[in-house]
């Protein structure tokens, strides 16, 4: 059976906040820079009249930019040799050799507009121990909620990873 991959002290983190909430104001320029880098020329992100014509208040932010707009923004000295930032926040310690990114799930609940101030908070959602054909593994999911300056939750994302 799949026992022992999740230490008790890690199990106790389920439902807990993994890092302090972060807040940032998303400008039209950085939102458009993301859209251009993704080769996404949707007029909703660039043309205010087009956005209004489609029922929006003003320029829309590509919703997946939420995952990047709030950082991390950290000093060069906090880069590892692979280029990634050293871990911030609370570590989810598991008795495993490697963790693979598994996928993402997003609920888009309200439009995100250029100029919105968004607060993100990430919690450890679940640690499910499973038995696979190549041995036991843990399905780990974290959930981030994104709230705008009016207190409205505009999106929720779940990050899935497989630890074995």
């Amino acid at each position: 059976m799949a026992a022992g991959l999740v230490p008790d002290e890690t199990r106790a983190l389920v439902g807990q906040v993994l890092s302090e909430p972060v807040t940032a104001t998303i400008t039209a320029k950085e939102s458009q820079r993301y859209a251009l880098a993704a080769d996404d020329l949707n007029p909703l992100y660039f043309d205010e009249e087009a956005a209004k014509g489609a029922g929006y208040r003003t320029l829309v932010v590509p919703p997946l930019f939420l995952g990047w707009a709030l950082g991390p923004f950290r000093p060069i000295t906090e880069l590892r040799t692979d280029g990634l930032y050293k871990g911030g926040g609370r570590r989810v310690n598991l008795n495993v050799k490697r963790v693979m990114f598994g996928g993402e799930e997003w609920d888009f609940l309200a439009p995100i507009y250029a100029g919105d101030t968004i607060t993100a908070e990430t919690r450890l959602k679940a640690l499910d121990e499973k038995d696979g054909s190549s041995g036991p593994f843990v399905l780990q999911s974290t959930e981030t909620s994104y709230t705008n300056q009016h207190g409205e939750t505009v999106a929720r994302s779940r990050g899935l990873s497989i630890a074995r």
Partner: protein
Amino acid sequence: MSAQLYIDDVAIGTEMPAVTRNASRAQLFLFSAATNNPHRIHYDREYAAEEGHPDVLVHGPLQGAWLHQYVAGWAGPLGRVAGLRWQNRGRAYPERDHVFRGRVTSVGEGGLVELEITEEDDTGQVLVPATATVRLPSKPTGEASA
């Protein structure tokens, strides 16, 4: 941009037109910069080899962005993407074609449509299986037929 799609235009089994995406190495650089992602597997081929990759990799999140564009483009400006769910199962490389295909799996109340989507590489391997939920508008009453 294509004409607006309405809820009356779709049914279970309706196919989404396929879309092909191909990222240049310069685009990978721009996407790394725009997302503040310094991971070397996306721009340093020698380093990518150290992690066991034969070339630099297209970011999983860029494929996520392509997926969102595929769904939002199909739904049109009056459509709303309510949810996206995807798994990253294989490596995607620059300068290679990636084909998105999808079909309608359910049509519900209030214009809600469920989609099943795949992103395949140029060998036919599914790199990303995905599902999406979109809300399509009803045709305005009294609109002259096209």
